């Protein structure tokens, strides 16, 4: 079998990244209310599990998840979430790719775990808040005002970064399980895969 990515695989990546982005963007728009911002790292993996599990079933070659992660990072940059999602998308996409390869692309239980790992890319959206805290605070002031900035900072202490990473992983697992259940209920029966 040819292991290089063909045109069809690349088109599949584009399609599923688009679906995934629209689904998570709809879910993550609750972040306009500052106290819900940390919740994004729970909601995004939870909802994203459904499209991702279908995507995983289409993956038969190495590299597809890495490309998907990088693309997500690029859209995040264009929609104003900073450039940190590009490296995190690359790293967690690559890890997930290796895990997919290790289980030979057909272990359904392992795929839930892989979705947990892949979901951790979402941490890239929070890195600027914690790592460059002062600059981020300053950048919020003129646009969003003192109160929004203060509220956000109060909800984002330094230790929240690892906590959010774990939260993303755990809810990625749950999201994977939900995705798996829906996948069995609908897609297998409908003959999509």
């Amino acid at each position, binding site marked *: 079998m040819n292991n290089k*990515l*063909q*045109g*069809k695989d*690349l*088109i*599949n*990546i*584009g*399609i599923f*990244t*688009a*679906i995934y*982005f*629209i*689904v998570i963007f709809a879910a993550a728009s609750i972040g*306009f209310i500052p106290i819900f911002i940390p919740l994004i790292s729970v909601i995004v993996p939870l*909802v994203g599990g*459904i*499209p991702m599990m*279908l995507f995983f079933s289409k993956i038969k070659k190495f*590299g597809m998840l890495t*490309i*998907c992660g*990088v*693309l997500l990072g*690029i*859209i995040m*940059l*264009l*929609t*104003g*979430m*900073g450039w940190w999602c590009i490296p995190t998308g690359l790293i967690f996409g690559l890890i997930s790719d290796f895990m997919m390869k290790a289980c030979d692309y057909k272990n359904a239980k392992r795929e839930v775990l892989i979705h947990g790992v892949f979901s951790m890319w979402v941490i890239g959206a929070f890195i600027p808040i914690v790592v460059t805290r002062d*600059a981020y605070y*300053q*950048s919020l002031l*003129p*646009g*969003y*005002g003192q*109160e*929004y900035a203060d509220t956000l900072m109060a909800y984002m202490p330094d230790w929240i970064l690892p906590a959010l990473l774990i939260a993303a992983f755990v809810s990625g697992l749950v999201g994977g399980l939900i995705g798996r259940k*829906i996948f069995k209920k*609908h*897609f297998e029966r*409908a003959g*999509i895969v």
Partner: protein
Amino acid sequence: MSRELLASQKNNSGILLDPRTKLAVLITIAVFILGGSYEGIMQYYIIVLAAIPLLLLSAARKWKGAVLYILIFGGSLCLEMFGLSRLTGVANYIAVAVVGILLRFTPSVVMGYFVVTTTTVSEFVAAMERLHLPQQITIPMSVMFRFFPTVAEEWSAIGDAMRMRGIRFGGGKVGAILEYRIVPMMICSVKIGEELSQAALTRGLGGPVKRTNICKLGFHVQDVIFLLICLGAFAAQIYVLAARR
């Protein structure tokens, strides 16, 4: 034809710009207006950047978009400068948040709108190839941009169908709504996607040979001017950062 990103036919876009210039302007606006810190001279430079989409829109004779842009952006700018200090308490909090979001998002959204309505898919792919980006990034990316409006259209159609069945937000369990909306959308999207990839393969996408392209690309005077404005933004930001130390 009603809804599409990345036009399939060439429209008259007024000032002719290279797709690469458009992307550079879009990224500059996204970085500095959406995510930038409004310090020192950047405060004034941002006005210059925000004027670019307006200029381009009026040059392309998209009057409706231009007027809307002036109303939304200019209105929230005036509010921020004059109106907000008069409000207090919760009203102030809400107004600040709304105005802040509008001020930050409209320029990028409008610029994004301009880029995708005046660039054809083949121009986009050709420009990405000139940037020497690998095929592994350019193909998924152009498919993705082509696919966003399709998914959005399916999403609203499914929303209508579900409303007819009485499944709506606030009416029942959240989980059920999620399932009834996402599952049909994904089944549709996968079907459309398969057709799309067949169509693209027929046109030689992903073939082993280098694809040729009839689009004329190249930098002209207007490209140089816009690129200089973008470079100026980065220079100003570096100056601000250096001055802070």
